[in-house]
């Protein structure tokens, strides 16, 4: 069970990565990145779980297997970090859209290079 879900989370990572490379729209790229991050969190929570484990609440008694609480505690930090990354990248996208009026990455790259050439020299 746990292995199956781990495999599924790796597949979700791959889906996100494919979106990240194939999509030209910057917003779609950010969403794909978020899919990758979420799948990573899923993987991280499940990696130390084995079937029949109880949630790690209460005191351990005889015959009860608890899931390892450490990864679940750690993953909270990375959820917060991912939130920060998403907020910051949306802000940056907003600035880019305001300036160039497009979300298409190829157009943005063309504009950016031209702008730098003009200002640099």
């Amino acid at each position, binding site marked *: 069970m746990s292995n199956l879900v781990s495999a599924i989370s790796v597949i979700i990572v791959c889906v996100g*990565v494919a979106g990240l490379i194939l999509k030209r729209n910057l917003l779609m790229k950010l969403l794909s990145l978020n899919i990758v991050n979420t799948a990573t969190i899923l993987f991280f929570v499940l990696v130390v779980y084995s079937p029949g484990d109880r949630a790690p609440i209460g005191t351990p008694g005889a015959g009860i297997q608890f899931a390892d609480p*450490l990864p679940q505690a750690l993953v909270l930090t990375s959820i917060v970090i991912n939130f920060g990354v998403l907020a910051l990248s949306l802000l940056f996208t907003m600035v880019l859209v305001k300036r160039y009026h497009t979300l298409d990455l190829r157009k943005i790259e063309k504009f950016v290079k031209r702008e730098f050439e003009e200002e640099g*020299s």
Partner: protein
Amino acid sequence: MTPLLAGVFSYLSAGVLSFLYSRFRFRASLIGWFGALAGTALAIARYVRSGPLVRTLGSWGALGIEIKLDETTLLFASLAVILNFFTLWYLRGNKDSYFYCIYNFLFATSFSVAFSHDLFNLYVTIELMSLLSILLIGYGRKGYQIYAGIKYLLISSLAMSLYLIGLGLVYREAGYLGIEQLGSVLGDNPGFTVSLGLGLMLVGLAVKGGIFLFSMWLPDAYSYSGTVAAVVLSGIATKFGLIGIIRLAPLGKLGPLLLVSGSLTGLAGAVFAILGRRPKRILAYSTMSQVGYVLIGVGTGAALGVTGASLHLFFHGLFKGLLFLSLGHAGIVGGDVYGTISAVLPRASKVGLVVGSLSIMAIPPFSGYFSKNVIVQAGGGDWVRYVLLFLGLATAIYYIKLNWFLLAEPSGSFAPGGLPLLGLSAIVAFSGLVTAAITGEGELISLLGLKNILSSVGVVLAGGAVLGLIRKPLRRLEVPGFVFDLNNALISLFTGILLIASFIAVT
């Protein structure tokens, strides 16, 4: 240990204070710097008294957070303190209190990465650093800066997800997060799962550390960002990934992998820099090339190699900071070295440029000479020696090219803003000699022999001769810009991941 934590705290409070009381932004940052300086001095005293040490914070037994004090920690903390002092001096008169806030927070994270010896702690500090450095890259709010920032953000966030997956794999097998504990549990022969996990973590760190195929975001980010941002990014932020690699290297058999990727990084960076045309971009490529030296030093696996790598981290931060400051002081943003730069270089800029270049070309007795030669002495096989020789030659070629064209520009008069440049030049010039004198290490002192000096100078002269031969075809060549576009950077990242995975599967 407490002194370095005090340094983190003093930088954090300086950041908060300069944000809240913007009138006192400069004084608050200065106080933060004093706290960090005192902390570093105390930590060095402690190290001299009782040697390297690993401690566990918290009362959770083996699950506590490990911290470590060794020469890498101390060199990195000193680098942060020195760069902080000179960039603060350079920033004097800057009215933007928000910039001071981000800048101080970045130095706080640099102190905390210096002593992290715990996989998850490394992850958190490195992510914090990347959020702060993205704010610094995009700080000028120019379109190209924002684009460089978002490119860095996408690639590095993806890479850190991979780091987290690798961390999960290692934790499942070994059950610890502290590197010292892991080392004792894993033993000499880690299994396939652990190796795969370590490889994935290496990918995450490689993206931060400026390694070829993994960090194609780097040239845009450095050449588009402002002066102080470029100094802090190339001097401090890139080193986070490298420190992570230095910490991880003893866990698995990563030595050959690091030697190969270090050589590739060095060579690719050198080729880019030889073909490069914009001054700031040449410096960015050169950062990539110098990262190669650090990786080779770590990859040799010898204690001497790690010492050389840490020394090179320290000196490279200093002289690359000096070079970026020199260009910034002269107001050079873009432009082509073959003609379209029409800048007046103040005298301080020229001094900084020459001292920094001599140092990075490993001319004795400047600082780069010591670190590069320690790495050469650490060995690592015959082919590594040839790669290092070629890297020395290539460094000479592109720095002679840069100096040739920039020094030909008219000199401006001395401006008071040039004082920090002169101070940093003095430090770059003498820090190698001072380090050799203080530590009294036999390897450093034996480098002052005539044979070593002559061979080092000979390599640079040979580089000049090669440049003379290839100067005409070089004018027509250029690094194609599309290589560093976001999609191509992602694709090269995945090529790198596949290469690492196949390398692990084979060994």
